[in-house]
């Protein structure tokens, strides 16, 4: 057994036991209950909602982020333990969506924290969310979901982008 084999085993277990913390300050919180309850039941794949970022593996960002909430998202993301994954949900997280000309909405989440997977749509249906979860599991198995490594490598750039939005870090 070499290091690569151990990593493969770890990815296998990681994939089958994804706990998530969802950041539902935008819209889209309503799409989650069907995914969790008896209609689609994501616990089949060992996924479940978790109460705190310390315990979670996935950060699910649903809908738009205001400039004020972005700081909370970054804090939540940095509290999570590696390996961690981010799913951005809805078209607002990609290009601003219907808030494309708003003065205090973050247009692209990828500039501030590394996003592993986007779900398109306004709003995406529960089927799309399930599909995204399955795709993320596949990506983890292949080792392609490496957002947490990218965040470490390019930390300076991410921090520079973040500080362009925040006036102060500590307020």
């Amino acid at each position, binding site marked *: 057994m070499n290091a690569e084999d151990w990593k493969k085993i*770890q990815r296998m277990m990681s994939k*089958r036991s994804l706990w998530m913390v969802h950041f539902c300050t935008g819209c889209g919180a309503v799409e989650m209950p069907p995914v969790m309850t*008896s209609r689609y039941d994501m616990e*089949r794949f060992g996924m479940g909602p978790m*109460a705190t970022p*310390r315990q979670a593996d996935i950060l699910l960002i649903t809908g738009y982020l205001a400039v004020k909430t972005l700081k909370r998202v970054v804090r939540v993301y940095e509290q999570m*333990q590696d390996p961690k994954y981010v799913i951005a949900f809805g078209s607002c997280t990609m290009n601003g969506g219907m808030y494309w000309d708003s003065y205090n909405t973050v247009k692209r989440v990828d500039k501030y924290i590394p996003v592993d997977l986007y779900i398109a749509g306004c709003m995406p249906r529960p089927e799309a969310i399930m599909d995204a979860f399955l795709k993320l599991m596949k990506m983890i198995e292949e080792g392609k979901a490496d957002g947490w490594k990218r965040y470490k490598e390019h930390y300076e750039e991410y921090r520079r982008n973040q500080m362009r939005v925040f006036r102060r870090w500590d307020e």
Partner: protein
Amino acid sequence: MMDLIIDIALNALYVLLAVAYGLLLLGIARKINARVHNRVGPPVYQNFIDVGKLLAKKTNIRHNWIFDLAPLFGLAGALLTLLYIPMGGYRLLSGDGDLILLLYIMVIPSLGMALGSGASANPNAGVGVMRALTLMLAYEMPFLLTLLSLMIFYNTTSLSVLLCKQQGFRWAIFVLPLSALAADMALQGMMMKKPFDIPIAPHEIGSGPMVEFGGKYLGMLMLFGAAFAVVETSLFVDLFLGGGVILNPSQYGIIAYMVNYFVWMLLVLVVWVIAVFINAVFPRFRIEQAFKFYWKWPTVIAALGLAQAYVMSVILGVVP
């Protein structure tokens, strides 16, 4: 020397099996919960994957050394308690008066966890610990009365003697049904299943004492939880269901140990599944409601059981 090595290996095997069985019990609980909710639910081995994943995670939480040692403290306390619990009649450590000793060492792991989560200085953890200690105060009342009735009826404080006297299906649950009922009610709170999952309420206080634990720490706490699920259910099985001892080891030897272990597993599963079904259909009490409930109904039932044990044992002179 050889005997000592065999003894140590056997003890390690028993503890390992118990923890693995505890993880399986947690998986069964999740499956049953899901089926009650009309869901498919995770596979029963899901908790093994969870523990593996958590122990493989990188962990960079820094508070202080008490916080770092707390999961270890909890796990070590749970393993120590396992050593004192007879599993299928086989017991690893024993002594006179170990029923009283058990009551004390059962608190060690919970206190360790309380210490660690208190050291993290998270307000949610503080609220959770406060609720856990209050709940402990609540369920200990009927539980101690129950133990007292057992001690009076069987005239012993030793678990081995208790098991010995219950052999041949002369189980305490048939003789002292009221005490068994009160103990099962107390067990629900001891295992923090609904309606008494007040300390770890995930939607209210962010999973309470566990709020700051993540990664490897949470993995260790999960193992601790698995071990403790076995400890608590097994305590009930040993006290009231004869500990699964149906064959006398001195007569049948190693076959008796294997059969007894199997029966013990079965009885633990039955006690656990009853608690899980109650857990699946109830909402959550508030802490003062739980306290009032415990000091009212289970305490009354336990007191009646104590009176029954006293009358049968001292006045009528029934000797088991």
